[in-house]
């Protein structure tokens, strides 16, 4: 893969030119609403971009799979598809979130390709960036670390004096024209490697078991009802752990009329398997229903199974990428996968 270098002093000009050419989305802070926490949003000036961010509140999957996405518009004359991707650059994605993209790419492509996601994905140039600040609850340094990120078009690593920019596709190379990039020296390339390797040791939380060991033991723990009850005792079934998860992709589909009450839209919205009604079906009769995961403990277990074992074979590794967002989002402090893994392994 070709490696390039851009000086710190030229980086701002590069961003300015890039932003002028097409929409750029990257990690930013909204002082009014998100305080000192980061979100991925449209970057309108070079100064706004914060490549020193630790982790975003909502994962960048929202760029391809927004929290609410219109699927169809219907009206008196029929129905119309609403796939309308925007050519854009998503800049500053950490490698663990790229790993999540790799999973979603596979899952949304599986059997029935879902272009509501895939078209957005294809229209976006994804530029990853090195982790400059490690978030408090991250454990990507240990868990699933053998699975490498693949789905990015370029990778920016901050080194002494500037950035090493590695390109992995034509989309990644197309960005070169926006800045004063030169060839990276061998020293610069190895400095970038050292930087990225070093980040792996900086996570405060660590998983000491292999994903394979965890997968086997988790699956075998399915019927350990006491354990799941104990782990989920304080669970609110609030779904926060799902909503902030970069690899969760469940959704609900609903129809809604417009104010004219004649036309309307069919849309999907992020759903959470922890919430009570997720697996509920109507059966008829006197308003009867069956809830296939009625107890909170069953739903808590389902998430653990999904992240640690069910999808491993299909994805070539665990469905959890170790970002720690669920740990931060969980009010009763029970969603931390490291804690859950340790409890499962204890038996």
């Amino acid at each position, binding site marked *: 893969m070709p490696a390039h270098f851009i000086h710190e002093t030229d980086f701002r000009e590069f961003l300015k030119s890039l932003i002028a050419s097409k929409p750029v989305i990257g990690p930013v802070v909204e002082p009014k609403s998100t305080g000192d*926490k980061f979100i991925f949003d449209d970057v309108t000036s070079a100064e706004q971009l914060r490549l020193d961010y630790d982790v975003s*509140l909502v994962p960048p999957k929202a760029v391809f799979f927004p929290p609410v996405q219109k699927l169809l518009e219907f009206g008196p004359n029929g129905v119309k598809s609403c796939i309308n991707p925007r050519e854009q650059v998503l800049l500053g994605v950490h490698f663990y979130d790229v790993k999540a993209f790799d999973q979603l790419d596979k899952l949304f492509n599986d059997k029935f390709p879902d272009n509501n996601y895939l078209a957005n994905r294809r229209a976006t140039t994804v530029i990853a960036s090195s982790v400059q600040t490690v978030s408090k609850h991250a454990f990507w340094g240990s868990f699933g670390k053998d699975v490498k990120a693949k789905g990015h078009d370029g990778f920016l690593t901050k080194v002494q004096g500037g950035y090493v920019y590695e390109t992995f596709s034509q989309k990644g190379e197309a960005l070169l024209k926006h800045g004063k990039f030169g060839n990276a020296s061998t020293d610069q390339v190895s400095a970038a490697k050292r930087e990225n390797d070093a980040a792996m040791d900086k996570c405060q939380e660590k998983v000491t078991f292999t994903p394979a060991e965890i997968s086997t033991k988790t699956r075998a723990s399915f019927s350990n009802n006491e354990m799941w009850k104990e782990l989920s005792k304080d*669970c*609110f079934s609030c*779904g926060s752990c799902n909503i902030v998860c970069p690899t969760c992709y469940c959704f609900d589909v609903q129809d809604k009329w417009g104010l004219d009450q004649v036309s309307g839209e069919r849309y999907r919205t992020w759903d959470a398997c922890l919430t009570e009604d997720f697996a509920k079906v109507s059966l008829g009769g006197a308003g009867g229903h069956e809830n296939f995961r009625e107890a909170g403990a069953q739903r808590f277990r389902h998430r653990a199974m999904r992240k640690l074992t069910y999808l491993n074979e299909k994805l070539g590794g665990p469905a959890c990428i170790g970002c720690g967002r669920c740990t931060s989002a969980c*009010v009763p402090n029970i969603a931390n996968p490291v804690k859950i893994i340790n409890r499962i392994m204890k038996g």
Partner: protein
Amino acid sequence: MSPKTKAKVAFFDFTSCEGCQIELTNLGEKAFMGLLDHIEIVEFREAMSEKAQGRIDISFIEGSFSREADRKRLEDIRSRSNVVIAFGACAATGGVTALKNHMSDYSEAVYGKDAKMPHLDSSFALPVSAAIKVDYSVLGCPMSQAEFVEIVSSLLHGKEPVIPNHPVCVECKKKSTLCRYGQGDHCLGMVARAGCGAPCPADGIPCEACRGFVDHPNQEALVKVLREKGGLSEERAFNKSRIFTANLRSDAVKGAGARKE
């Protein structure tokens, strides 16, 4: 009800501040005028002086049922209406008026020497459904505009409205709203029924669960979290959720639930 004939709609109020009817007048012009193509308002004292005569398609009732003397008027509304909708938190659950159900010393403090006047006499504040059959509820304090539109729109199409049974946390997380607990604050969002779009936490204010609880709130964990993470005293943590859900808590007064048909 077919979208082609206009549905006759009326509003009534009981024990309440009438804020939900005021909130209706705040519904944007576009939404309001859009709906007026499909409904005809026959009684609405916040905006008109006419009184409804005869059958009503949809009756919205604001306020709780807190005086036995109101039962007859409620039954009359029910008998004249095809659909009865509890309009706002007080009508749906007793809301903030149900705070009195766990107090005995407020009359003198509030009304002084008039405390014993007969028109102030009232019993427990109960949801309207404790007196008559209620078909749907527009939740919230004040009532949620979006839910009002959703319910009216659904009724026009003969569709069961979609009312979420997941908590406010889902809506905060989707919007990247900072969690109050991460800001040294407390919040009831984990047990509060969503559907409002979580505007309060987005403005830096804790959720007070004005739309009531989800179907099965984890009330024990709520008290624990309010105490340990929210920094509330034992007593305050225990009482905290009463502000809007007094009649939904496991220690609600007898009869606070819906009337059995």
